[in-house]
C-alpha cells in the first residue's frame, strides 16, 4: 500500500500537496444522494455556500451542479435549501 518504502524517501514534516481526491473517492461514502430539481431552484447559492466538501459548483448561467465523486451525502444542502429544490435518494452503488 505505502508509497514510501524506506525512511530515506520520507519528507521531514508530514506535509502534503493539495490535490483533488487525495483521500480517494469520498463519494463512495454516501448513503443518500442529493439531487437538485432545477425547475424549483431559485439560484440562491445557499447549498454552494454550505457544502463542506466544495462538491457543489454554480455554472455561468447560475445552474447548480453536484460533483458525485466527492459529495459524501451529508445532506446539509438538502437541509438548507429554502425552496426544497433538493431531493434525497437512497444510494445504490453497483
Amino acid at each position, binding site marked *: 500500500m*505505502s508509497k*514510501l518504502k524506506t525512511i530515506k524517501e520520507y519528507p*521531514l514534516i*508530514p*506535509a502534503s500537496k493539495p490535490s483533488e481526491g487525495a483521500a480517494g473517492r469520498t463519494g463512495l461514502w454516501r448513503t443518500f444522494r442529493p439531487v437538485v430539481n432545477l425547475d424549483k431552484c431559485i439560484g440562491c447559492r445557499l447549498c454552494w455556500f454550505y457544502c463542506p466538501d466544495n462538491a457543489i459548483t454554480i455554472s455561468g448561467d447560475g445552474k447548480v451542479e453536484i460533483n458525485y465523486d466527492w459529495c459524501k451525502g451529508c445532506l446539509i444542502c438538502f437541509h438548507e435549501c429554502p425552496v426544497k429544490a433538493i431531493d434525497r435518494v437512497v444510494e445504490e452503488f453497483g
Partner: protein
Amino acid sequence: MSGTIIITGNHAVSYGAWSSRVRFVAAYPITPQTTIVEMLSDFVNTGKMKAEFMTVESEHSAAAAVMGAESTGVRSFTATSSHGLLYMSEVVHWIARSRLPVVMVVVNRAIAPPWSIWTELLDTMTHRDAGWIQVYVSNNQEAYDMVIQSYRLSEMKRVSMPTMICMDGFILSHTFAPVTVHTPEETDEFLPSYSPLWKIDPENPFSLGNMATPDYYYEFSYLMHEAHENAKKLFNNVDKEFERFSGRSHGGKVHGYMLDDSESVILAMGTLSEEVMVAIDNLRKRGEKVGALKVRLFRPFPAEEISKALEDKEFALILDRSLSYGYEGQLATETKAALHTSGIETPVINMITGLGGRDVTYKEIEKFHGLAKKKVSSEKGPFKPIFIQLKR
C-alpha cells in the same frame, strides 16, 4: 557595544530575545514569567526591537500564534509558567511534530492544588516527552546565553526542533545579577539570520497535519528521535562556538565540579545545582571528597556523559525538585536507566527536595550528603526515594 548590566533572570531572557533578533512574540501573562514579556512589549513599543508583539487571550493561543508565525519563516518567541504551559500542552506537541525551531522559556512553578507560585520542575517534566529540547539553567547569565544558543541549535537543519529553556521561578526569575549583554549586531556573528527548513508559501501551497495511517506515522516519530540524536551531538559544538564568540562556556550538556578525585557525586538541575556547588566547597574543607554534576540538558538526555561521570564512584546522590508520583524523582529515574545501559553499578540515592519552592540550603545539602553516605555504607539497597524535607 556589549556591556554588563544588573538585571533579573526574567529580564536576562528578554535581552536574550532582543539580541537574537526575535521577530514575533506572542504573550499571555502568568507569574513568575510575566516580566519577561512585559519587557519585550516595552522593547517593541519603543522601537528597540523590530518585532510583532501579539497579546492573546490564553496560553493555548500564545503557542498557536507562535506556531503560525514560525511557520511563515519568522524567528518567534514566547514564555510561560506552570498552568500556562499545561494549557499550551496540545500546541507544545504540535510545534515539535511540525519541526518548528521555536524557543520558549518556561519559568518553573509548582502546579495546583494547593495553589502555589513558587518553583518546582513538574511543569516542564510533564513535557519531557513532547519532542522539545530541554535545557535547565542556574544563573541569569546562563539564561541570557541559552536563549541565543538555543536559536542556533534549534534552527540547525539537522535538528529543526524547538527548545524549552527551563529556569527556577523567583530564585532566578526575580533575582538581580550582573549579565553581559550583546547587541543584535554583535550577536549576528554567532547567530545567523533564520533560514527555515520549510515555510508557508502561497506560491507553493501544501497542507500540514494531514492524516497519516499506521503505514506512515511511525517514521515521522523516528525522524524526531534522529533530530534529538543530532542535537545531542551538536550541543557541545554550539557551546564551544559561543565561547569563541563571547568568552563564556557553561560546560556543555553536563557541567562537572570537582569530579576528578571525588568518591561521591551530587547531581542536580537548575539553581539547586549551584547550591550543591557551595555545599561541595564546604564538604571539601572538611576533607570529604565530593564532586557535583549539574545536568544542563535533559532532552536529549546526556546518558553517556552522566554514566562516565559516575563510573567508579562510591555512590551518587540525586536531588530532584520534582516527583513522579508512585515512583521517584525524574532525574533519578533517567540517571539510573543510563547507568544500567552502560553496565555501571554505582549506587544511587534519590532525595526529593524543594517541592513547591521549599528552600534547599547548602547547609542542608551538606547534611543530605552525610545521610546518603551513611545509608550506602550500612544498607544494601534497593534504595527508595527519600523524602528528606518531610515534616515527620
